[in-house]
């Protein structure tokens, strides 16, 4: 389950940004996860809360936005949703040489909502 490594990478990058920008606590991390990113958002959510413990992100919420896979054939100027499993052959010409994937592989931190200071102790 590589979602643990992915969660650790998210926490690492957000902590780095917090240090650079002088924030000490995080309220929300917003992620874009494409349906072809190879990451399961629910598993990531579970891992995120574990990895956050003891960091500036402790108690932070992870908000994941799923991004559908969309492809385009430059030859036919046709655009389509690739679906899951994806169909990346052009529905117009049947070819794949001029097909490009426009969205669907995102695994990106969109933004962070900072909390004013250390979050109050829970419980």
């Amino acid at each position, binding site marked *: 389950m590589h979602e643990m490594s992915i969660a650790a990478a998210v926490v690492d990058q957000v902590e780095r940004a917090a240090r650079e920008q002088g924030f000490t606590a995080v309220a929300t991390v917003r992620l874009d996860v494409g349906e072809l990113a190879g990451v399961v958002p629910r598993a990531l959510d579970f891992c995120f809360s574990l990895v956050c413990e003891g960091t500036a992100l402790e108690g932070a919420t992870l908000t994941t936005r799923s991004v559908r896979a969309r492809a385009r054939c430059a030859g036919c100027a046709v655009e389509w949703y690739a679906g899951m*499993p994806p169909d990346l052959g052009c529905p117009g010409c049947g070819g794949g040489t001029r097909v490009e994937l426009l969205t669907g592989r995102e695994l990106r931190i969109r933004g962070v909502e900072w909390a004013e200071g250390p979050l109050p102790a829970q419980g």
Partner: protein
Amino acid sequence: MCRTTDLRQAVLARNDDSARALRAELAARGTVAVNLLSSPGSGKTALLEAELALARAREVPVAALTADLATENDARRLARTGVPVQQVCTDGLCHLEAVMLRGYLAGWLPADTRVLFVENVGNLVCPAVYDLGETLRVTLAAVTEGEDKPLKYPTAFGLAQLVMVTKTDLAAAVGFDEDAFLGNVARVNPGVDVVFTSAREGRGVGTLLERALAVRDGAAAHRPVMAAAQAAPGYSPGGPLGESGAHAHSAPHPATAAGAGPRPHHEHEHEHGHGHGHGHPMVDRL
């Protein structure tokens, strides 16, 4: 009230940066890395044994690194070919990352290596997400796994630059539908070459070595549709390494990865220690 920051950073930016740097570093010394992905038991090691033996017979300097959760069985098998082999035991970790790979290569990879085969952890899910700095990514499936494997694991097959079907000597026995398999591969990865092999019968043996050497000598590898979106604009690399890759290694040494997680095991004649307990800054050369 809360304040927000637009980060717009790829989550795997640091791995991707490390992978780019490693790819450039390997290219500068004339080595091309091949990343082999498949399910456990798909016949990666048997095919690799045959390819390594062939390379040895042709006097092409190659090396292999093989990753498993536990045991050194694969390295023992591969080392019989006489080629430098390193076993990595990941202690349960399901995939390799670029910075780990670099750590294992530092001080071990022979200078004249033309092709480095990396046998990734047997798993079609996690390894698919991590660029290791390879120039040729190969996904394998045995005929016994069924024709719909590419649809079930679209990221692994969708990002392959070459697909290899193994154990074709069993195709008739298991009723493997070759056309259906090819159709499924084409659906997730239009244009990728599919090579049929049988390590037992020798079918297709040598293709992997030839493809790797061709890519090393400048032939263009297949560019999967799914891979193109990875480099889409809007991703800003967050790591300290730039695009160029060929520079001094000021980034944290991979020994942190090697020390904290997977252990490298060496299956070749010159044992050495690296990365542990040294007081000097770590700037190991590959």
